[in-house]
């Protein structure tokens, strides 16, 4: 099952994948255990002539322990999953690191507008550069993304980087990622946003350091 996950190319993707994998192993074990017991009981206690069912009400605590103790184990495993996951969540969504590069992503029906601050590092100045549906970032650098929306709710999804975040009009939501492998990765919208939702897509280009410098030179020749 886990092999269906797309290739992970972000620093925190591995943390998310390992949580998914942990849950997968735990739930698979429970699935086979409970379904096994279930099927075993169905076979063992099928109707047979002359055999009367056992009269057990299961109300007394001593009897109910048979269901309460497994439920307690479920709780312990659940809490384990939760606390194991807390770190991964804090890493991705908690405190956003300062970032080597800042990009503003504005969602609108049905495009991603990618805004670069330019050499001065400030948005809203003359050297800003706006691209449609394509983002260029250097590999192994922390990219800080400010997510906005012009109209409806969209969701910024980078499957290969295990990043997803809703873009909500009226809010600026901070996010970040650090890509670990150069390449082209798809950047679809994951929240129903109107008739063009299907096909709202962009590309993230992760460049090796030198190639990224070349791209910067092409767009800001004076810097």
């Amino acid at each position, binding site marked *: *099952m*886990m092999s*269906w*996950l*797309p290739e992970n190319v972000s620093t925190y993707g591995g*943390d*998310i994948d390992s949580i*998914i994998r942990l*849950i*997968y192993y735990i739930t698979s074990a*429970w*699935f086979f255990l*409970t379904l096994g*017991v*279930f099927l075993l*009981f*169905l076979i063992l*206690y*099928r*109707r047979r002539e002359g055999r*009367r*069912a056992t*009269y*057990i*009400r*299961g*109300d007394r605590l001593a009897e109910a322990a048979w269901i*309460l103790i*497994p439920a*307690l184990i*479920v*709780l312990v495993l*659940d809490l384990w999953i*939760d606390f194991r*996951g807390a770190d*991964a*969540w804090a890493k*991705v*969504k908690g405190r956003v690191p300062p970032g080597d590069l800042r990009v503003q992503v504005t969602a609108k*029906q049905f495009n991603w507008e990618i805004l670069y601050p330019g050499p001065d590092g400030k948005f809203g100045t003359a050297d800003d550069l706006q691209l449609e549906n394509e983002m260029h970032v250097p590999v192994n650098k922390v990219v800080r993304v400010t997510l906005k929306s012009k109209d*409806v*709710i969209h*969701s910024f*999804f980078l*499957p290969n980087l*295990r990043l*997803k*975040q*809703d*873009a*909500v009009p*009226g*809010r600026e939501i901070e996010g970040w990622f650090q890509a670990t492998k150069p390449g082209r990765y798809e950047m*679809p919208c*994951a929240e*129903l946003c*109107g*008739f*063009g939702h*299907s096909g709202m897509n962009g590309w993230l280009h992760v460049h090796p350091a030198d190639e990224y410098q070349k791209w910067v030179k092409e767009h800001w020749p004076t810097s």
Partner: protein
Amino acid sequence: MSDPVAVLAIPEASLHHEELGFWRTYLFSTEHKTIGKQYLSLGLFMTIVGGFLAYVMRWQLAYPDTEVPGWGFVGPEFYNVLVTMHGTIMVFFVAMPILLGAFGNFLIPLMIGARDMAFPRLNMLSFWTLFVGTLVLLASFFVPGGAASAGWTGYPPLSAKAIYTGVNWGLNLWILAHAIEFASFLMGGVNFLTTAITMRAPGMTFFRLPLVVWQLLTAATLFLLSVGPLIAGAVMLLMDRIAGTSFFLPEGGGEPLLWQHLFWFFGHPEVYVILLPAVGFVCEVLPVFCRKPLFGYRWIIYSTITAGILSFVVWAHHMFLSGMDPRLAMPFSITTILISVPFAILVFAMIATLWGGSIRFTTPMLFALGFVSMFIVGGLTGIFNGSAPADIYITDTYFVVGHFHYTLFSAVVFGGFAGIYFWFPKMFGRMMNETLGKVHFWLTLIFFNATFFPMHILGLGGMMRRIANPMQYQFLQPLQPINVFITFSAILLLVAQIPFAVNFVWGLVAGTPAERNPWEANTLEWAAPSPPPHLNWGEAIPTVHRGPYEYSSPEGPEDWLPQDRLVVARSS
């Protein structure tokens, strides 16, 4: 010990049977059993509509932008309509009418030993209100601009302004249909609660109530408590659309996330409004065909109530990535995980019931067992969604679609069919065919899994929900054969319902006449004739002497002991 309220609630005069005309008997009836059947018919009809939408949707996903056989070209605008209306219809106009409306009305008075609901006229009004709501919803397909297309969750701003979807009246009518539907179920819920609390037969204490009554009451209570905020939200959304307010529009100072909080504050309890009645049917069917008391009767009641209470504090797990403060994720993740405990107890109690039983694999039992096994899968896949970090990747993908079909669709299909096959003899006085029923079960089980299990794989592969054409994305193209597979499984799942339709109609007109108690069950409804007459019980209301699940009790020679049977102490 007789309950004075129960005695007072039955006017003597009503016992004299008066002949009512056709209209009052079949259409504008105040009779709880007739109203139950009306809910059932409406729900089954809407299943056909919702199922057809699912078929068109699946075809579009397998063969994007081709002519759908039996429909025609779909395109992205209409695809969004399909997504929206399929969800809305299945949740509000199929699951609730069948599980809550039909069975709540039919079962509660019969199981507690009452002659009818507490407010029969209100009961009639609640059904016909729902009928109007259904007409409004169906009418929305035919207005200019077409039906609603903002998803069944209707997130604003997409749903708050006509320019965002191109749908104006369709979405207004969609909101209106919800409002009418909620009014209907509010009336129904009040009626359920009043009836079960005040009109129980002598001896029917709360801890002798069949569990399905407990589950229906919990469901009705959850609905009553949770729907208020959503009604307020719906009014605000309608005002945003037609009166120029901006409750949810940020450009006018509104807050889009407010809707999500209101919607899911209702939406999560709503899941249990659908699920609990189905759990209740299974709780009734299992002991009858295990010939054994249901394991841990009181624990199940406590678990049900606990799950109900917890369902009010988990709503934000639908919103981990909505832009709400990320620090809220962990508290909601923990409450979400806590709610798995009462449900684990329910499932373990069901499995423990099988232990030491004498299991008869009748059609209703097969569907009940199908529910248990599918609900285990649905519960386990829910843990992926409930974990906030895993949800970053999983949410808004087909994994979620797979998960909620394993829980909700299995509640409606396996729980609902268990109920229909089990109580059909009581409802209509005739038996359904067992062989056809078993064919129906096995085909449904196989194609249910073939349809919904691969959706988890699509989700892990990253396929987003609500996209009309997966081929527009390079990373999804290798997954397309799975989409084709799911589509054909879904079509076969729909075809697998034909044996049921045949069985149902055949059973109605030509089924073997049912005995009073064909399954040798204990609960009170089986003490009434099949079908029960007007006012259910002849001259005397049954008196209850014991709990509902005394099967194979050492008290008697038979392996069942009806709730109303008086056992005189035997002298040796």
